[in-house]
């Protein structure tokens, strides 16, 4: 019995010892003290290592994008979840989780006076398919591709990182053709929100297929009431923007330009008969400018547009599908002037481009509109390219070792 007591005592001691070392989970946020930025610039580059399991994004920071190398190896702030999307607004860097069931998490980062990127807040939203910045807010849109007929619009206070309001919009009623209006993106135009959409069946083994491949639509909403005011329509090209892809940009004089990739499909086959083109909505109007049509497909020799980034002075950086009459395969980079309708392939750009950094959140262009940056992912690596807008020449800048560049964005501190 004595022996047993000894053993029991040892066990009890062991149990208590082992029990006392659980660490408390930390939210890991920093109490951020507001300060006046001193005009320093830091770039946040988000990169995803290429692999098939346990993949996370990493937030990397760099002082400039014109040269050098940066790596995700042992470096970068890990993000939770395989798919994340980013938005920079009001000196805040928002990291939005996509997927893993609803709702989604948002992590807000800010730049400390010493140039360190720190987590300042967590809050909850939903997994959304479109988002944009409006005044001091973010507008997030959750768009069901089947079942539920309502898309939800969420207004987020970007300064406080919390939700202000939410509102449903019936997208079946909006499409009014038996299909569903799937917003491709949303853009602030004056005091309104322009949200182009694609018509999709949302069922039947072909959710993104459509019977209406030859039309473009832009829904116009008031803000902040989010009342539907109008749908702008056209039949000269196909839908504006694309799934998770911003189709509209507002230039300095207030005119709005939009592109269509002409990628409407049925049963995974391209069915649109219209060319990939850019169209225009003049400032203060809610109609397509019938006098303007920039047939990019024709000018490029049959290539479709994939994404657009506005660089200033009516110049856009376009990524084009590299194979004519196709909306898959490698990409190529081009510069266009939307006013003069000039199309030029970018010189010095790499071959075999798999993808480029998110066009919807690229604020890296210089103030004078002379230089722009784009993250380019090719079969042989990832690198930021510096674009001399005047000469149409791209030159290699910061190399990102080991990961696909998903976004590049500029922050002041």
């Amino acid at each position, binding site marked *: 019995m004595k022996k047993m007591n000894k053993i029991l005592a040892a066990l009890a001691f062991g149990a208590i010892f082992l029990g006392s070392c659980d660490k408390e989970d930390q939210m890991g946020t920093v109490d951020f003290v507001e300060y006046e930025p001193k005009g320093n610039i830091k770039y946040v580059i988000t990169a995803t290592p290429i692999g098939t399991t346990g993949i996370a994004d990493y937030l990397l920071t760099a002082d400039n994008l014109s040269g050098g190398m940066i790596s995700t190896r*042992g470096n970068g702030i890990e993000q*939770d979840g395989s798919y994340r999307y980013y938005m920079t607004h009001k000196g805040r860097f928002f990291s939005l989780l996509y997927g893993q069931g609803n709702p989604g*998490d948002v992590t807000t980062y800010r730049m400390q006076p010493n140039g360190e990127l720190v987590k300042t807040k967590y809050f909850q939203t939903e997994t959304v398919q479109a988002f944009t910045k409006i005044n001091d807010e973010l507008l997030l849109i959750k768009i069901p591709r089947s079942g539920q007929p309502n898309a939800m619009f969420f207004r987020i206070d970007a300064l406080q990182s919390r939700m202000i309001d939410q509102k449903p919009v019936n997208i079946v009623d909006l499409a009014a053709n038996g299909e569903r209006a799937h917003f491709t993106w949303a853009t602030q135009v004056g005091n309104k929100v322009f949200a182009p959409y694609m018509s999709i069946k949302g069922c*039947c*083994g072909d959710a993104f297929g459509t*019977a209406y491949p030859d039309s473009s639509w832009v829904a116009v909403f008031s803000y902040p009431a989010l009342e539907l005011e109008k749908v702008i329509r056209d039949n000269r090209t196909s839908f504006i923007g694309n799934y998770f892809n911003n189709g509209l940009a507002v230039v300095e004089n207030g005119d709005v330009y939009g592109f269509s990739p002409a990628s409407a499909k049925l049963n995974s086959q391209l069915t649109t008969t219209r060319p990939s083109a850019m169209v225009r909505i003049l400032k203060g109007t809610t109609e397509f400018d019938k006098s303007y049509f920039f047939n990019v497909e024709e000018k490029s020799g049959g290539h479709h547009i994939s994404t657009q980034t506005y660089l200033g002075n009516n110049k856009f950086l376009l990524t084009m599908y590299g194979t004519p009459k196709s909306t898959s395969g490698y990409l190529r980079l081009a510069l266009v002037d939307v006013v003069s309708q000039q199309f030029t392939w970018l010189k010095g750009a790499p071959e075999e481009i798999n993808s480029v950094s998110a066009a919807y959140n690229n604020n890296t262009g210089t103030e004078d509109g002379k230089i722009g940056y784009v993250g380019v992912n090719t079969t042989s690596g990832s690198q930021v390219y510096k674009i001399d807008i005047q000469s149409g020449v791209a030159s290699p800048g910061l190399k990102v070792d080991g990961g696909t560049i998903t976004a590049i964005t500029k922050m002041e501190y």
Partner: protein
Amino acid sequence: MTKILLTGFLSIITLFALAQSDGGASISGRLTDEAGNGIPGASIRLQQGKALAITNVDGAYLVKKIAPGKHVLVVSAVGYKNEQSAIEVTAGQQLVLHFNMKAAVSEIGEVAVLGRSAAKEVNRQAFNVTAVDAKKLYNSTLDLSHALDRVSGVRVRETGGLGSRMNFSLNGFTGKQVKFFLDGVPMDNFGSSFQLNNIPINLAERIEVYKGVVPIWLGADALGGAINIVTGNSRKTYVDASYSYGSFNTHRSAINAGYTANSGFTVQVSAFQNYSDNNYRVRVDVADLKTKEYFPRQWVRRFHDTYHNETVIANVGVVGKKYADKLLVGLTLGQNYAEMQTGARMTTVFGQWHRRGTTVMPTLKYQVKDLFVKGLNLSVNGNYNLGYEQNIDTSSRRYNWFGDYSYNMGQGGELTRTMYKFRNHNGLGTANLSYQLSPKHSFMVNNVFSTFKRSGSDELYPNDEKYDQPKKVSKNILGLGYKFEYNEKWNTSVFVKNYSQVNSYAKSYNPSGGWGDVAYTQMRIRYSNQGYGLATTYFIKPTLQLKASYEKSYRMPETEELFGDVVLLEGNIDLRPESSHNYNFGVSYQTKINQDHRLSFDGSFLYRDAKDYIRPTLNQNQSMQTYGNLASVTNMGLDGEIRYSYKQFLTAGVNATYQNLRNNTRIEQGQKEESSLYRDRIPNMPFLFGNADASLFFRNVLKKGNMLTIGYNFLYVHEYYLSWPSQGTDRKKMMIPRQFNQDVNIVYTLANGKYNIALECKNLVDNRQYDNFSLQKPGRAFNAKVRYFFSK
């Protein structure tokens, strides 16, 4: 053609049989202990000569080829007094002789370590196998998955409490890469109501864990191992009934009963039930419904996590007949209900989403020994599952951890609005034919054929039904094996397997774009692959065994991987089977220091080289998931176990597993440069873990024949990264923290095991447990269990 083959085969067998008739006599019978239970692993030999037999699981034996004349038969079993019997046999005589063995008190200490139960016999095979003796756990409230969690090389990862989703990993292989069997019959089609995480331990007699190399009599396309659950096949009349109640309003009961008449007529019934509210406390950040800001670090109770299942298995038939050693017709009926509390992260809270499933499965089991000729054994199994699975998500509420909710407009779902209900119509037939030509040579043929036809519908979307055509798979796995037993010291098995699978599916499309217009493209994919393997073992001494085995294995793609679903998953018909080279080396040794201290050591080294892992990835426009043959992985692993016993008073053991899983994909799809993750450790996979246990036995407590046992179990899992270890700033990476878990139990056994009372405390010091990132498992929990056992 088949007929000719069969005739040919039978003639060959007949020839073998003729060659074997040498006019010798045979003796058979059964060894029982004082309580009437069969004694497995005992030896029966003639004092003169070499003839020898070992009793099987039931205690039965057969000694063949005995020369006519007088002999002395010596019966010895560890823990029992030797028995001798003088006999005289004539040519061709078949003598039946039963023995009732008396316990040898002075030697009983050996039982703990060296007495070879059936489970230990399994461990002595050439395969890298670990057998868990389930009987020792009958007084615990474990289910099969938790019993397996204590085996080296095995990690069972759960998302929550009772009935929660679990992920089983064996030497780094997970999910469908490891196959499960019940009495040698694949469990793939049993449905969610009859799975590892709800089957009580009392249903099993032992659990065999085959690591890396799977013997051919378990026919399956397992990439890296198999688990075989062996249920009791005792011929006696028995009742084993238990009920337990514990924390979180958990009720579990199980009844196993059987009756066998002298005529051989037998009825067996197993029924079990699990219920739990799973309302354990968790530490979470709670979102405000309006602003969506978090209230950090709140203790809340889970409020939507009830799980229950009820299952009945009934078999009726005959045993011990000339035409059938066993012929059973059975029916398995089961149902389960599971509420879903969280998504992949604790931040995602659900309050209404739930799943249901049923199993309705008629079964047939047929076994016959010495069919036509001695040594030719046949077993045939068949089953068909008519049950369904359903996912019900129709609430437009949005919950937070306080259980409060807001409404979204319209008809929503918390995740995806659905009431999708499907049936897999799984049918399965297995046949195993073995023939022992001589003590040295035996042959085996195994064939497993399965069919699958999934059809589903969703009452919320009746229009979609015509787009959702049945998906059909038929799979056949044929294995041929040969075992050479050179002598008691050395034996070797070699085998070849042919995997073939045909998948067919009608893919719907809309030819015109007009509403409701449907056309179909027929799709058909056929695979055929050959695998092979070898297992050999050598006993340097009776107590020192070496093992080596190898298999080239395959896993065929599943229909969902090939054809996708209708909503979120895009099919990829170009998928190839996953394949792997699996190597194992093992050593086991038993020793003792005087008669009181006994030790056993087991160690194994393994290497896996797996290719073409089927993994999910995003499709080209990133709008859907699709599967691809994307990854190659190597694993070099070590595991070991040491056990110790002191007299009859104490047993203790410790095991540890280390696995070095490395990414072996040098160049990723669509890339030309070496991947930055090449040779990095596979993330989100435990790589160092172990168990320790100790039990103290106090005999004749309060009353003679009553025993008190105090048991302790400790689990350790080293922390591991959620994502690739080489990437990102170290202190900012997501971790699955180190886990300690301690369980203690006290069992009081009355009347030699007839009545049992057990008290258990799981997670003794309330450590926080995570198997998956952020998903907390239950804290400290108490259980009480009463069990009645009767057998005749």
